[in-house]
């Protein structure tokens, strides 16, 4: 009797459920993956600025997808349209969704109304990353900055997010485009 290869009924990726699978990922597993991402990027760039840009791009990749995924799993039929609720959403709900805790502070720049800061004492992705002296300003939280930037940009709040390492922890400096501020003031007056 001839051996026949078993035929499996393959369900397409479009049929599988989106609900969260059981169990969380080990921090060490993620740290391993992240360190590989940093090393991979490091091999392909010449300077620190490009390395941060590459990590930010990887964050972009994640951010565009996770935004829709989050809203579909947790709060169908809802989205954020105003700036301050959106920032609060990112600081509290979204941060909790990503890292299981909220970011510590959300502040606005005193003089420039389109600059906001999100401050977190201990950045999860940087937990196992040590930056040698010759790398100077490198901050691998550029990955998280990329996530935040793409989440804001795809929902319509065009911005740029940079990281800054201070004594209060990791700071994400969010600079919104003028079009966002114009739209906000237009919606405020109506």
């Amino acid at each position, binding site marked *: 009797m001839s051996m026949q290869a078993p035929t499996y009924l393959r369900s*397409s*990726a479009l049929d599988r459920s989106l609900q969260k699978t059981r169990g969380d990922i080990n921090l060490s597993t993620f740290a391993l993956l992240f360190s590989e991402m940093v090393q991979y990027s490091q091999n392909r760039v010449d300077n620190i600025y490009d390395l941060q840009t590459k990590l930010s791009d990887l964050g972009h990749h994640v951010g565009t997808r996770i935004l829709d995924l989050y809203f579909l799993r947790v709060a169908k039929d809802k989205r954020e349209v105003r700036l301050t609720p959106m920032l609060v959403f990112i600081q509290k709900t979204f941060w909790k969704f990503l890292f299981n805790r909220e970011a510590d502070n959300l502040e606005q720049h005193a003089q420039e109304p389109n600059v906001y800061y999100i401050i977190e004492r201990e950045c999860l992705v940087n937990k196992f990353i040590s930056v040698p002296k010759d790398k100077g300003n490198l901050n691998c939280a550029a990955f998280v900055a990329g996530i935040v930037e793409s989440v804001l940009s*795809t929902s319509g709040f065009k911005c740029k997010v940079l990281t800054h390492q201070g004594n209060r922890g990791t700071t994400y400096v969010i600079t919104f485009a003028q079009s966002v501020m114009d739209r906000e003031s237009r919606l405020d007056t109506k």
Partner: protein
Amino acid sequence: MSSSGYYFVIVGHADQVVYEIELGGSNGQTTDNRHLNQFIAHAALDLVDEAMWRNTTTYLKQVDKFNEWNVSAYVTAGGLRFLFLYEHLPRSGEDGLKNFLTEVYETYVKLLLNPFYVPDKPIRSAAFDKKIQTIARKWNL
């Protein structure tokens, strides 16, 4: 005599067509109709843009009416706009339409999770096509 079909389009962030499909109609759809559908959909985009910044809901019911064609919109959290053109509401009514759009959104997110799919690029997957048609049949369109 025009068949009562429906036209569904997904519009990306740069106002480009990411995906379009004609559903439900029988063999009355001529090429003239197709250009008209695209025209109506683009004209409705301005109204959708106005409405989407006032509402935190995803489903905006009817946003525009052109002669006998109505346009309903659904805006996703990621800023993508789904437009649905119809002459008469489908048999399953407003609810059926809303459920159809929600299921399309779920299917879209599943496609989005594919790391090889670049967001905002046109969707050419045949599996996606088939899935949308299945969903349409399920909600009686």
